[in-house]
């Protein structure tokens, strides 16, 4: 008798192979795996939403009703608003869902709005105000790079009103400084994107390694069979292109 654990391992491996078959070409097994993923993910999401709702609201209301109604009576409001979300399916009362969206959006925006000026702006600016002269040459070079690339990036992204250059006349100092910062910004970003690209490879290969180690098990013979299948795919791919 096959155990649930073994069956689970086979299903996991089959799903991985079916999904990977998309790398060769789109096919029915990939589509099936994709729909299986979608169904479980959506069902999982609903169940976990219920779980969160249960632990935040229903459980305290049922187990300790006295304390709940004394301190958390106002939870009635978000429950009513949450239920109003289902009004979006109505052609006539669709607008009722806006009340719930409005509260959620406003709370999220308000929370972000009050901390963003410090977290994203002030702290970033103060971290860029660095001494540009000193006894340690390495530190000085680093500080110059930090300041120039940051200001250059800001010039590229935010201060987007480029100074005009008068036809025929030599470029003004403002124009030259602006242009230099603009290019420093671009080249700085190229360094950032290079780092991002290299790290993307690390992540994606990491995903592949974990799939192989966790779901496919490193078996020599299984890997040889996979290599033969891949070789067939190469030949078929080459023939298809001809």
């Amino acid at each position, binding site marked *: 008798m096959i155990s649930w654990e073994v069956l689970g391992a086979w299903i996991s491996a089959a799903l991985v192979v079916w999904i990977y078959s*998309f790398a060769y070409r789109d096919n029915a097994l990939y589509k*099936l795996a994709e729909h299986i993923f979608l169904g479980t993910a959506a*069902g999982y999401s609903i169940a976990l939403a219920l779980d969160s709702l249960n632990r935040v609201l229903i459980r305290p209301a049922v187990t300790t009703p006295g304390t709940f109604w004394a301190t958390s009576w106002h939870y009635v409001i*978000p429950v009513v608003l949450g239920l109003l979300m289902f009004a979006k399916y109505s052609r006539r009362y669709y607008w009722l869902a806006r009340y719930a969206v409005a509260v959620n959006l*406003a709370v999220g925006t308000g929370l972000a709005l009050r901390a*963003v000026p410090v977290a*994203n702006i002030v702290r970033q600016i103060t971290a860029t105000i660095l001494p540009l002269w000193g006894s340690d040459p390495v530190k000085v070079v680093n500080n110059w790079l930090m300041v120039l690339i940051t200001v250059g990036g800001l010039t590229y992204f935010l201060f987007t009103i480029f100074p005009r250059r008068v036809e025929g006349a030599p470029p003004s100092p403002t124009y030259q400084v602006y242009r230099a910062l603009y290019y420093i910004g671009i080249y700085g970003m*190229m360094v950032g994107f*290079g780092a991002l690209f290299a790290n993307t490879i690390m992540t994606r290969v990491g995903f592949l390694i974990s799939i192989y180690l966790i779901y496919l098990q490193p078996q020599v013979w299984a890997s040889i069979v996979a290599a033969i299948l891949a070789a067939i795919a190469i030949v078929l791919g080459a023939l298809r292109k001809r």
Partner: protein
Amino acid sequence: MSLVVRKYVPQIIISAIIVATVAFYYLYISKEVAGAFSTADKALSDWAVIITSFALIVGGIDILRFHVLRIKREGLAQAPFSTVTIALLITMVVFGVIGWYYSYADPKAGITITTQPQFRWLYTNVYAPSDAAVYSILVFYIASASYRAFRVRNPMALLLLITAVIIMFGNTTIGGLIWPGFLSLRDWIMTVPNTAAFRPITIGAGLGTIVLGLRLLTWREVSWMGRRE
């Protein structure tokens, strides 16, 4: 009147809550008022926590509706696939609800929504591997792109390539065999030029959030309403 309840009241709610949330944080009148503000602030956050749960349920139901409509519209070609999605979605929810029921009916058994055995089996053996495989398949396209698209056409692309190569050597152990300095060079790139390059983006994201907040506050942002009035 109808336009008032359909459009203006939700907008007034948005403005009022944004002003209140910011005021609760920055405004200090007295210790008692600060305590009351803190309680009200927490209550508002909890409201959002509860409403988000409902929103997630609505999102799941949207997927269900979409696939029912697809079966109707596209017929037999799509029916087997959409049926699988619908069946699995319902199965997951049913097992979750069974777990939920047992958490009340027999609390000592320790079964909850997330620990219900069949629910757990499904997410461990079906959801988890398919999620992992779907995201990891991108590695093949990265390999393909590095051969076909990563071309040094100008000095900027050259700088990008040089940085990428240094980071790649710094990230891997083989880089250390070739030249031990790759690791510290990688750390320097990450902490100096890379940090400086992403700092304007972080500041820009902050400014974007502020602008979005102000647009919502002043009723200029209406896309969240879905359809226009």
